[in-house]
């Protein structure tokens, strides 16, 4: 018990240490307090905007956009990847779009999205969906394609129909790969929403950060960063535990 606590402390000491250095830098006047507000002021800003409802509101906007874009990408991407893995025609038509298009910085298209979908939520959701689609489709596609043929042959040999094979063999075998893609896409969704909100919006945490920055209210910038960090961490853990539940036969390589 005690030894465990000490080990834990020895592995997590750096966060309190950095916070301590932060506080020392501010109170000693080494760093301009406007740029690096004291921890107390960050906490006060966090508590104030939490209770006034401003932060919960913007957080809700940001994460519901991210969730919608992400879910849309998963719902479109996984079946599409399966179709690409199965049909040579679909594969030949779309493989270059995904593999060639993968390294293209799609963020450059965001201005066009704001014209097509308007400046509010729809353009952000659509763009998040596009950004998430790439890692989801590519990893799921590779997962579907690298399923050993003998698994499918064995199922066919035992008289399984094509539908049963898809449901009972192909899909479960590809699930770890699918989850790997989803786990890559989740932080991308959050990054993209915050970023596009910073470029132009009147709601969401990105907007909150941009506005606080121009007002030199850096305690609010850090408060928002803290909120994003905590929510991102919780979502990632939720994704991992979902993966453990669904891909229960494969343990050990969750981290």
């Amino acid at each position, binding site marked *: 018990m005690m030894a465990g606590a000490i080990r834990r402390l020895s592995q997590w000491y750096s966060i309190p240490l950095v916070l301590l250095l932060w506080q020392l830098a501010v109170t000693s006047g080494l760093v301009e307090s406007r740029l690096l507000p004291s921890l107390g002021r960050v906490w006060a800003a966090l508590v104030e905007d939490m209770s006034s409802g401003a932060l919960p509101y913007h957080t809700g906007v940001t994460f519901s956009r991210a969730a919608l874009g992400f879910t849309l990408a998963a719902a479109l991407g996984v079946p599409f990847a399966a179709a690409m893995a199965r049909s040579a025609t679909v594969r030949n038509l779309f493989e270059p779009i995904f593999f060639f298009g993968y*390294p*293209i910085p799609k963020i450059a298209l965001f201005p066009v999205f704001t014209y097509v979908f308007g400046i509010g939520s729809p353009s952000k959701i659509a763009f998040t969906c596009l950004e998430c689609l790439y890692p989801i489709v590519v990893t799921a596609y590779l997962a579907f394609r*690298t399923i050993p043929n003998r698994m499918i042959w064995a199922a066919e040999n035992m008289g399984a129909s094509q539908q049963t094979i898809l449901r009972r063999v192909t899909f479960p075998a590809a699930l770890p790969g699918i989850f790997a893609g989803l786990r890559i896409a989740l932080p991308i969704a959050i990054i993209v929403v915050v970023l596009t909100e910073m470029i132009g919006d009147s709601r969401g945490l990105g907007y909150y950060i941009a506005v606080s920055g121009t007002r030199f209210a850096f305690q609010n910038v850090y408060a928002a960063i803290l909120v994003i960090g905590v929510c991102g961490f919780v979502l990632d853990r939720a994704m991992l535990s979902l993966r453990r539940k669904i891909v229960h036969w494969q343990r050990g390589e969750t981290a």
Partner: protein
Amino acid sequence: MRIPVAIQHWIVPVAVLAAWEGLGHAGLLPRYLSAPTLILAALWEVTSDGELVQALAASLYRVSIGFVLGTGAGVAVGLGAGLVPGVRHFFDPLVSFLYSIPKIAFLPVFLLLFGLGHASKISIIAFSCFFPVFIASRHAVLSVDKVLIWAAQNMGAGGPRMFFRVIMPAAAPQLFAGVRIGLAHAFVILFAAELIGSQGGLGTLISEGEDAARFDLMFAGIVTFAVLGFVSDRILMAIRRRVLRGQIIGTVEQLVR
């Protein structure tokens, strides 16, 4: 009759471009979707008056310096964290907290620290490249097959030799994966930073085209930016293929070239 695969690959892009061009000329598309030929004309226009070269140079300067600094720091600290438990225990909690935060959120801080010019972009690009590269390098060192290390030790390999001849080659594939993610991050951050607060660069070219309702200019900037990102990735992958000669055979990569 079967259409050759190489031609099938081109069907969708060519169809989209042709439809875009045709519908654009028929006046069926909104004005902000400039037809591809108009975009080419705009590209020629900004190339010949030197505007594009200037913007491209500014963006390229920011992204390359930021990427090199961030990647260098990420590899160095990441390898350190992989090799030395003390370094690992110091950086792991900090990185795992900061990793999930979009680095662009720190842009106001960097803007105040370094102003609107090159320095703020370079530093935030370096900052955001650091994390994926750090994680990949750290992980790469830790997942080197113990048997390889034991074998080398048994044959009398010491510190530097072990590092350069055993650990680095074994860690290189994962390390490159991290660097590639870092490169992608660099371009995303570059674009956002240039749109939000900047002087010069492709982002400025795009937003100027937008403000003047010259959508062909906006697209010229977008196309240049996309090509820049794409070409950078290709160069990185070419370097990777050269460095990892022989290590790629037998992996999924053969599926997708």
